[in-house]
């Protein structure tokens, strides 16, 4: 599991670079590094379907970012390289959070089955106990609405967000102000 620690450290460094670098194109590339590291991580954790989705989403995101940056500007004017005293406390908090994160993740990864042993422990439990625990004859319904209800809640939230986004962007006319001017 050493490669996972290396990936995690690289992702933290790349995320910090993405925030702090002045060239926006380089920041987008750093963001891409974070996303593709997540994809590699999914492969290492034996979830290739998630890795494929992550690669597609990350590629699209980086392409969108690059397209927007190339059409506008690639200098982030809000970042200055000069040292300021009020940056010390946030930096210390960042550092402490990173160390804490790596410790927690290290303990979580220690509980994973070792490389080469079957990882489908949870799935076997779902299939074996699905009918008995939930009473649903369809094991898929038992999994998505009972064992993994949080997952479905997130999926419904994604759909809700998508609908709200489409309605916001595609709405014509918008609300009118009292004096007849279009606010949108």
């Amino acid at each position, binding site marked *: 599991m050493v490669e996972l620690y290396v990936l995690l450290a690289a992702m933290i460094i790349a995320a910090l670079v993405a925030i702090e670098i002045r060239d926006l194109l380089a920041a987008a590339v750093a963001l891409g590094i974070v996303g593709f590291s997540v994809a590699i991580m999914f492969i290492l954790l034996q979830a290739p379907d998630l890795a494929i989705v992550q690669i597609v989403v990350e590629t699209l995101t980086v392409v969108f970012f690059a397209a927007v940056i190339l059409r506008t500007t690639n200098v982030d004017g809000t970042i200055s390289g000069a040292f300021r005293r009020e940056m010390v406390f946030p930096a210390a908090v960042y550092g402490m959070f990173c160390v804490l994160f790596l410790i927690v993740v290290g303990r979580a990864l220690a509980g994973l089955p070792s490389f080469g042993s079957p990882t489908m422990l949870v799935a076997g439990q779902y299939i074996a106990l699905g*009918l*008995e*625990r*939930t*009473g*649903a*004859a*369809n094991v*898929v*319904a*038992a999994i*998505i*609405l*009972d064992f993994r*209800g*949080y997952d*479905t*809640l997130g*999926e*419904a*939230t994604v*759909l*809700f967000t*998508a*609908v709200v986004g*489409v*309605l916001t962007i*595609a*709405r*014509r*006319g918008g609300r009118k102000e009292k004096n007849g001017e279009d606010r949108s």
Partner: protein
Amino acid sequence: MRGMSPIVQVVARLLAGMLFLFGTYVVLHGHLTPGGGFAGGVLIAASFILMSLAFGSVAQTERNSYTFSSVVESLGGVLFVSLALAGYVGGAFFFQNAAVYGTGTPLRLISSGIILPANIAIGIKVGAGLFAVFLALGASRFVMKD
């Protein structure tokens, strides 16, 4: 939006009811057979989309059903979250199911705790949401300008 030819209208009138019925069936039997809220909701939305494509609609009707389906979509989401929160009522955790409501007799329609109402909530949400997206993307181009 203008309607289509009489042939399309007759066939759409025959199909739309069956599509809606089949969507309702898929939603209600989600815990027994393949399918569930997402698949059934898409079928329900398809029946509405078929009707409005075949027969067309006027601007005011479309605007009303646009508002209505947005509201219904949000209500479906609220229903789903309150079903999840209902686990707290029985003194258990978020999304607690069988321990609070019992599993019922497997393979019966009324069984498996909150899975059936959760499927219904998701079906309402997906059906209304997709129809609202259709109205916003497809119809607004023609009629929602004013």
